């Protein structure tokens, strides 16, 4: 085959690639998800919060442990590949020691919460030989009471938020369980944001073909796909509105601390008003089936 023939073949392949990408972006939910992720990442990036994602998670866990007085607290994320729980945040006197552990599933309350997706509290953990006793013993800390709730991200359990040793009460109450559930939702949102940013970076990296050795026709196809997506996003009114709002917040935040505080107070007041307005949807999370 001559050079011209090869070029023609490449061209045909590139066209197929592009139309394939277009089909995927247009037809599958993938496009919707990607768009949501990009919108979120863009607005978060615009506000450019000085708090890193891991610091945010740590603050959520700290607040949970002070609202529900506890001697120690942890946030685990699930490593699906290794079938293990990984400490993302560990607070308490033995935090440094436990942080290096990974917990295989099949151990303790955290593992049970992870596989069952059900929150659980136990109050005489020391008498239970399986409360990850190997970890507890090796760091010299055996909790008496434990409360664990799942973290949900897109219907999946992605982690577990756990409090150890309730202070001021012999055990965690069902009200504590409900409260910790609210913190778990906050943590899930923080994780969601960090993953959205990760997606954006991955997508841009792929689209620009930064990795060497990417065949030209493939790079062209990906670039075309990214272009068509960004074209569509630029036309999207919701995305534009989110960006405009984020840009305003950024501008005000940079004006000074007082301005930042005033902006925050106004937004909080407005959000509070929105939350207090009567809502049509019931509070059971069943809106999707209504």
């Amino acid at each position, binding site marked *: 085959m001559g050079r011209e023939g090869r070029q023609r073949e490449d061209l045909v392949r590139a066209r197929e690639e592009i139309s394939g990408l277009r089909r995927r972006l247009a037809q599958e939910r993938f496009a919707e998800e990607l768009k949501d992720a990009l919108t979120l990442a863009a607005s978060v990036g615009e506000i450019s919060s000085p708090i890193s994602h891991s610091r945010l998670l740590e603050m959520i866990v700290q607040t949970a442990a002070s609202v529900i007085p506890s001697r120690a607290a942890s946030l685990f994320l*699930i490593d*699906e590949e290794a*079938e293990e729980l990984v400490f993302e945040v560990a607070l308490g006197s033995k935090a440094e020691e436990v942080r290096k552990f990974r917990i*295989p*599933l*099949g151990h303790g309350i955290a*593992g*049970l919460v*992870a*596989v*069952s*997706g*059900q*929150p*659980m*509290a*136990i*109050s*005489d*953990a020391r*008498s*239970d*030989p*399986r409360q990850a006793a190997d970890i507890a013993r090796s760091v010299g800390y055996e909790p008496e009471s434990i409360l664990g*709730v*799942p973290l*949900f991200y897109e*219907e*999946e*359990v992605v982690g577990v938020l756990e409090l150890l040793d309730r202070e001021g009460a012999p*055990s*965690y*109450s*069902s*009200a504590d*369980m*409900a*409260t910790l*559930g*609210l913190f*778990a939702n906050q943590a899930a949102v923080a994780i969601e944001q960090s993953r959205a940013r990760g997606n954006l970076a991955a997508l841009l990296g792929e689209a620009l073909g930064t990795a060497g050795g990417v065949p030209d026709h493939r790079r062209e196809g990906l670039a075309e796909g990214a272009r068509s997506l960004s074209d569509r996003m630029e036309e999207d009114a919701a995305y534009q509105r989110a960006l405009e709002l984020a840009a305003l917040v950024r501008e005000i935040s940079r004006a000074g601390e007082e301005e930042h505080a005033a902006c925050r107070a106004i937004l909080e007041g407005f959000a509070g008003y929105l939350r207090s307005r009567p809502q049509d949807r019931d*509070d*059971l*999370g*069943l809106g*999707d*089936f209504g």
Partner: protein
Amino acid sequence: MDERPAWSAQFAPDALRTLTPVPPLDEITTGWAWGGSTGAGVKVAIIDSGIDAGHEAVGRGISGYVAITDGPLGLLQDTEPHEDSYGHGTACAGIIRSVAPDCELYSVKVLGQRLTGRGTTFAAGLQWAIENGMHVCNVSMGTTKKNFFGLLHNLADRAYFQKTMLVTAANNMPVPSFPSLYASVISVASHEGLDDPHLFYYNPEPPVEFGAPGIDVRVAWADGGWITATGNSFAAPHITGIVAKILGQHPGLTLFQMKTVLRALSANMGHAKTG
């Protein structure tokens, strides 16, 4: 903020609704419902993390085992006796036997140390229970994945028509969890009463229909141990035990009849019902 876990608020003492009896439907007594029944002859499957047959709380043995795992070659079913990976299934077994000591228990193990295929193995466990003629099935778990909604809904309907009663724990988190939200199951959340394992409430505003003890319950756990635990997981087995006792006395009841009997016996019914 609501002071109770999701789904359990309706069983708080100040929120409980008194039911108006509908005679003669609501004149059923415990004497009629289960009399001297101990659940003998009733097959009860526990879809969970396995059962420790040697635990003192489990009492008389386990009638059958199946462990379902998702491997590279598809689903595997192992009918050899197995252990309990967590203690959770043993806790359920202990509660059921405390109410219906002579029921036949079958351990359907779907919770292990693997996360992959959770929804698939769970659905396969339900299918096993339906196809193997279980009368009652304790389901102290569920899935939040919407792509299992249809499959589990079909299985729950099959169970309904084949008279396999699914007793399910509502998820304490405010997320939709299946199959506990289907009308074809008996869904259960917690109340804090501990004195009487037979004491339960009916909620006239479902989806969660029944409230049973699930807060600070003393339960059997792994390696022969005992713990004090809180969760709807421990409320459901109380109702499972009661259902087994009623089926021991009245074999062949349908699910809609069973719900009528349970409503009549609920502690918030507006008349006394002993005898």
